[in-house]
């Protein structure tokens, strides 16, 4: 909900307008940052699809398919963290700060769980199928580059959310002034949504 001056009853109008306008700038800037990050992903995805369709067949001969069931489980973990993040922000907006903290902790735990799952998947691929980043042709190159890039985003997101949780408990945000939390939620949803795309193109189609 955009904050306009009229919704803040007791503030100094100048300061509140400054906050509203600054918030608007930051929101737009952050969304545009997400757009450019999306372009970064889509370029590498284009590269992957281009190589995948270059006639070698997919998965390339010599590689068996990825473990879809485990990936589905791990995806659900990540998607679930998106839902908990949504509840965290909703609770903050309604002033339920304790519930907010609980949902945030759940989000962080699920995010870390997804990372562990991905680590397990990498380990299995490397140990059992001898798939590596540089030694497995375009299969290893595109799979590890894209999922690794995404994993790095999740990792950064877990740290980001932890910092936000600490800031929130230290009283940096108020019920109406919490752009940091909004940005964190946007970022986390972005990471989830990218995974919908990566999950589809690597495991499903």
């Amino acid at each position, binding site marked *: 909900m955009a904050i306009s001056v009229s919704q803040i009853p007791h503030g100094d109008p100048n300061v509140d307008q400054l906050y509203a306008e600054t918030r608007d700038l930051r929101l737009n800037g952050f969304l545009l940052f997400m757009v450019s990050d999306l372009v970064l992903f889509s370029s590498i995805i284009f590269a992957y699809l281009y190589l995948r369709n*270059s*006639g*070698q*067949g997919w998965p*390339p*001969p*010599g590689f068996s398919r990825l473990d879809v069931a485990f990936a589905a489980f791990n995806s659900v973990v990540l998607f679930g963290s998106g839902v908990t993040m949504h509840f965290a922000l909703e609770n903050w907006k309604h002033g339920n700060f304790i519930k907010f903290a609980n949902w945030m902790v759940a989000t962080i735990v699920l995010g870390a769980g997804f990372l562990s799952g991905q680590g397990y998947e990498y380990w299995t691929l490397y140990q059992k199928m001898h798939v590596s980043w540089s030694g497995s042709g375009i299969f290893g190159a595109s799979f590890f580059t894209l999922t690794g890039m995404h994993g790095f985003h999740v990792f950064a997101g877990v740290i980001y959310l932890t910092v936000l949780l600490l800031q929130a408990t230290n009283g940096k945000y108020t019920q109406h002034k919490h752009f940091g939390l909004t940005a964190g939620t946007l970022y986390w949803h972005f990471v989830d949504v990218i995974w919908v795309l990566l999950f589809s193109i690597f495991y499903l189609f």
Partner: protein
Amino acid sequence: MAVENRDPAVHLDRGFWLVTALLAVLSALAVYATIMWHPENMPQLPEAAIPADQVDQLFKFLTASAAVIFIYVVGYLVYFAIAFRVRASDPPDAVGVQIHDHHQLELWWTIIPTVFTIVLAIFSVKIWAGVQFASPNNGLVVEAIGHQWFDDFRYPGVHGIVTDEMHLPLGVPVTLHVTSSDVIHSFWLPSMRIKADMIPGMINTLRFTPTRAGTYPIICTEFCGTLHGTMNKQVVVIEPQANFDKWLAGWKGKNKNASDAIPVAGTGTVNLTGGDAAAGQKIFAQKCSACHAVGPFSQKIVGPGLKGVLHDPAHPKLVNGEAANPEDAAKILQKGYDGDMGHMPNASQNGISDKDIANLVAYLNSLK
């Protein structure tokens, strides 16, 4: 002062019309000069093949149109800059005619370029189709393989590579497949007005018909390393056909025992009887399809497409310069290949048994 100019009636004076007429004369001269220009008579750049004359027609059309546009734009630009320059007699705050736009004029200078663009697009597409899809059935199929920093050629019926200049008979349509063994090169025949990049792992095709005997340059136009600037060869267009045949026969004799015809020694040891094409198809999907398509030769993935490899007379005879036979295929499957077209692992590297080879050859033989 300024007030007078506020709501002007657009008035084009005599100077404007004089300049317009002058520019029309200049444009007419430029168009005339373009039409009268005959590139085929230029010693540096004769038209030596079928698409060349059409490309030059396109060039002349473009030049004539561009000359008219350029002359008018720059002519008006210079004339306005001089005619409407501020004079010493003008007051310091003098302003120009305050018009913001003129919808009719803007409409016209949108419509005219659009029409020009459409005409150009139609013209280009027509010539483009002629260059791309003029595929002769009975032509000569030649291959050019780029290396740092020279080109090699392969001719039907010639064992191994031809290191000479490229020779072509006059008037015979040529299908030229180009590829590279290392980095990207580009194969430019300036006198034929065509070019294709030689890309490792890919085959590009040029189609043209030499129409003029003589020797013309072949130039590499894609940067390919230290000596890129020296990577030139020549194409010799020979007349009559008999002379070309003599040249080709010379290479056939010279390369008769060329060891790189099949770059593995000895004969194959695989018993091919009882090969099962259906079983071969399964092995092909597992072991071969990463590098070979079941398509025409030019559909190269890592190696060439294998459709009709043992049957199609137009299929470039990469194997040994003659129609490939099942034994050749078996030999390559068994011992691998390492030559200008790239590298193929041998049977043990690929993990295929003698039985698999027999099945694969049966499958390849079934591709027609």
